[in-house]
């Protein structure tokens, strides 16, 4: 009853044409017992930050295929911090060149996932990142 579910926002910032990868991840997280808020294509960083706030999520997963990640990701991170959600864990998935991954991690992103990532890996990393929340609530 008074169970703490991990709440995840899966969002697609920018102008990507499809969201198959994001949906696969959303579905896998659902099957892992998480509550996944899905917002659909073509979101601005402002819309994503606002949804993260209203939904009080533990995790934001950004899926970006367009190559605009170095512009979009820091903007989302800044907005989350500005509204007091610096503790929200941000993950990035999509088409991210290898040389950008260290820079994203430096900015505060917790994990970056390219094509071929096993969903089990993402589930494991999210559970570990929000580990303290995942413990069963006192009854």
């Amino acid at each position: 009853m008074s169970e703490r579910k991990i709440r995840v926002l899966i969002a697609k910032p920018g102008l990507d044409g499809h969201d198959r990868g994001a949906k696969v991840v959303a579905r896998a997280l659902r099957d892992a017992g998480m509550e996944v808020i899905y917002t659909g294509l073509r979101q601005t960083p402002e819309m994503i930050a606002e949804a993260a706030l209203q939904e009080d999520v533990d995790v934001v997963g950004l899926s970006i295929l367009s190559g605009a990640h170095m512009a979009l990701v820091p903007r989302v991170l800044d907005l989350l911090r500005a509204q007091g959600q610096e503790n929200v864990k941000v993950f990035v998935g999509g088409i991210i060149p290898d040389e950008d991954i260290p820079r994203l991690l430096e900015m505060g992103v917790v994990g970056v996932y390219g094509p071929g990532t096993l969903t089990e890996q993402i589930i494991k990393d999210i559970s570990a990142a929000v580990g303290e929340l995942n413990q069963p609530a006192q009854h």
Partner: protein
Amino acid sequence: MSLVESVLQGNRLALARLLTQVENETQQGLEALNRLYPYTGKAHIVGVTGAPGTGKSSLVNQLIYALRHPPPGQKPLRVAVVAVDPSSPFSGGAILGDRVRMRDVAGDADVFIRSSASRGALGGVAASTANLVQVFDAAGFELIFIETVGAGQAEVDIAHLAHTVIVVEAPGLGDDIQAIKAGILEIADIIVLNKADRPMVDNAERALRMMIEMASRKPIPAAENSQSAFPWTPPILRTVATEGTGIPAVVEAIQNHRHYLQTSGEWERRERHRLQSELENLLRAALMKRLQAAISPEAYRRILSELVSRQLSPYQALEILLDGGKQ
């Protein structure tokens, strides 16, 4: 400053966090509800229900936009939404996708949308829905939409939670026999026939109209203490929510229904009924918890085994359990 005080002062992050506490029924959440209760009772609670894919979220998106941009001379209302989607019965997880359709109201500080998983409840809303609404009410939101899970025929809990129930239908979902069956259409105060640009819309409207005309409209749940001076006939309104067609008429119907409730005495009756039903739900959950605490897991397993091996009938098992599990 406490979370409750921050919420009362309009802090949105505090509101979001309190909603989580309330949804998870933490001690902090329950204490906050007690402190917020005196501030509640002002909001107009509007339920939106209907089969999956009829366009509930798109309709709510358009209704919020219209309420935030009213005709000259009217005040824009502060609007909150509790959007419920189903939890998986297997993993307990959920995909909450109602926000996908509610993007026209992003960036408006007087709109707050919260997605919520049903977490095992079967009536179309979650056990926590009433409490989430209460928090929004106390936080000063004037109109609160509850969007149910995609509902079939019998998910009618929304009738106990809302002042006004909108049932969203779409062409091609069933014949006139579906329309006269008991259940979801009976609880409608407003019927919206969405996707009205589709073929068969005339047939769908005819079936719904016939249903309304045949219904000897009774206030729910019982007629005896109704003080209604004049009855309310649910209007059937055509919309195309994705394009915004027909939305002003739905907004007007919501306002008309509120006026009807307030002038007929029906508002007080529904408030009373709503709070009674909420209390009974709490009571049921608390009694269940107390019963579970009173019976040892071993005794419970033993009784269950005897039930399976046909040594006890379900009613005999019930007697024993109510007796504290002693045989």
